């Protein structure tokens, strides 16, 4: 081995490293968990904050963007709510009161970690994304979050809401790690909403494991006020004939990095990752995906639409990997962006890595402005320019919004879209 050059640490890196040293003794979990945490921390310690020379982070240079690491909150638990609403405030989980539907079990992650068996540890610390410094930092430091277990065959119709908030006005960091285990033939949906009234740096991880023929739909949503810096990692392992879909609706926050590591491990998986990002001002949103087909007959669909105004910047990096035995994989990936301003920028990097010969995979990426022909068509029908532009933008986003299965969530996101457009017009 060649000796590594000494890492020159930034101020933020130094304080993140110190925060682990201070916290580690008090983090929940037995020896096996501690071992997993230490291995994860080593990854972070060795790499430091990701920067532009790390390919997967090329367009989101955290070393530069995170000049200062805010102190990681000791955490103030939110009040418990009824229904299927889990509050995660400052990274601390509060479970809802009242009875849960049959087949659904919720456990605060701090408790799950304290008594974790080998299977749970394996699920909680997967190899996917393990060499990503920020995902690793999350694995090392997370104290809490929620463990959601859906028993085999259970059909949970109402979405389980995970509401991420922050308390107080002082700048702080929060870290959370959630695991959703969906048993064979079970079905559930998760709505993950992020808000942050204060200056928050958030590192959140959602891990999904879907058993045979399980079905899970996940919606990620930023609310009116969202963290000024947010790294959201999604890891999913999808079993035979299971269907996993994840939809992201992004309209708030300053710097958001969403990274998804999704793997189909059984035949006949259906994976769908989609999203709409509405960016303005100096907002920066990065969506980086790695979708891996390890076995035959898998299907994956990725479709992301980004609308950028002001000086906003957007990133889409999607990589579909088809392993040598994953014949008959059907993959389609698309990223489309509309620039509403000359100062906005979109970076698209779709990639296919195909090691099997009998597959149908395609990708496409477009960046453009509003189409003057379309605008004229609507204006010639009596619609003023600003309204015509709004209709075209809304239609562009609705094309993918239609894929959100839950009607109430779809309508809520639709209202968010209309509101964003109305604010732009005013």
């Amino acid at each position: 081995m060649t000796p590594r050059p000494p890492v020159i640490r930034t101020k933020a890196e130094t304080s993140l490293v110190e925060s682990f040293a201070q916290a580690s003794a008090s983090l929940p979990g037995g020896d096996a968990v501690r071992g997993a945490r230490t291995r994860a921390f080593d990854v972070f310690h060795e790499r430091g904050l990701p920067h532009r020379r790390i390919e997967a982070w090329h367009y989101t240079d955290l070393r530069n963007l995170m000049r200062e690491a805010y102190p990681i909150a000791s955490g103030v638990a939110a009040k418990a709510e009824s229904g299927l609403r889990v509050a995660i405030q400052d990274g601390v989980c509060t479970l809802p009161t009242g009875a849960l539907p049959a087949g659904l079990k919720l456990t605060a992650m701090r408790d799950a970690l304290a008594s974790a068996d080998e299977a749970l540890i394996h699920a909680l610390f997967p190899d996917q994304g393990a060499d990503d410094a920020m995902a690793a930092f999350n694995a090392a430091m997370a104290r809490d979050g929620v463990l959601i277990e859906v028993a085999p065959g259970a059909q949970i119709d109402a979405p389980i809401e995970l509401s991420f908030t922050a308390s107080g006005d002082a700048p702080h960091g929060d870290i959370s790690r959630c695991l959703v285990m969906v048993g064979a033939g079970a079905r559930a949906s998760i709505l993950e909403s992020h808000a942050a009234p204060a200056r928050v740096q958030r590192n959140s991880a959602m891990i999904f494991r879907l058993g045979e023929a399980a079905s899970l739909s996940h919606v990620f949503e930023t609310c009116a006020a969202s963290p000024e810096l947010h790294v959201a990692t999604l890891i999913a392992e999808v079993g035979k004939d299971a269907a996993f879909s994840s939809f992201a609706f992004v309209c708030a926050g300053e710097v958001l990095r969403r990274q998804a590591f999704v793997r189909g491990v059984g035949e006949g998986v259906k994976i769908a990752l989609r999203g709409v990002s509405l960016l303005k001002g100096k907002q920066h949103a990065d969506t980086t995906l790695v979708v891996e087909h390890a076995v035959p007959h898998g299907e994956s669909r990725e479709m992301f639409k980004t609308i950028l105004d002001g000086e906003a910047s957007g990133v889409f990096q999607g990589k579909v990997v088809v392993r040598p035995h994953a014949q008959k994989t059907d993959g389609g990936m698309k990223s489309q962006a509309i620039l509403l301003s000359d100062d906005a920028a979109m970076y698209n990097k779709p990639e296919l890595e195909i090691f099997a010969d009998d597959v149908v995979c395609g990708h496409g990426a477009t960046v453009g402005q509003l189409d003057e022909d379309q605008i004229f068509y609507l204006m010639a029908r009596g619609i003023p320019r600003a309204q015509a532009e709004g209709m075209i933008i809304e239609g562009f986003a609705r094309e993918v919004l239609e894929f959100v299965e839950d009607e109430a969530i779809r309508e809520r996101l639709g209202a968010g879209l209309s509101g964003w457009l109305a604010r732009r017009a005013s």
Partner: protein
Amino acid sequence: MLTITDLHANIDGKEILKGLSLTVKPGEVAAIMGPNGSGKSTLSYVVSGRDGYEVTEGSIVLNGEDILAMEAHERAAKGIFLAFQYPLEIPGVTTMTFLKAAMNAQRKQRGEEELTTPDFIKRVRAAADKLGVSQEMLRRPLNVGFSGGEKKRMEVLQMVLLEPKIAILDETDSGLDIDALRIVAEGVNALRAPDRSFLVITHYQRLLDYIVPDSVHVLSAGRIVKSGDKGLALELEKNGYRDYVADAA
């Protein structure tokens, strides 16, 4: 109704309309015929107010009002309708949403009440039935995945609902089979009224068997080079545009 006088228009610094004059009276159906590239679509765009054209000379007057300074949506509210040669697809915007937005945008500009939803739906149903536009088409995003014939029928549906004062049909016959052509022509004929005029742009005589014009004008190299009655269309069908192209050169 519509008076165009000595109209000169450029696009990208290139003069396309070169002194075009034309008068269309109330209730008149005027046919514009001419070879490809003669400026027919350009005329339709300049009259309906598309950005990007520079009018260097001349005037366009609608019912006594000079419209050249108006934006396209204002002209539409004044009663100018253009049935596009190539109707645009608008992904994600359902046809119903679009129709309602268009009808209400015009009403608002004219200071009229917005349509109630039941009234709107009733109007659309009635018009759609006559034109053979299915409910399923109305639920789909505007023109997305429609066949050429469906797109043209959708243009006529919009025209019926928007009740224009002057409708410009830019090669509405192109790409239509004979049955679709008949449906479209019937839709237009049903709209003929003493206070509504039509400018029917076509390359072929065929459409004029179904929409019988009151006058026929030959457009060549950016000017009207000959006007006559419907007999002129038959003559053009027989002899082609050769004489007029030569004249203009």
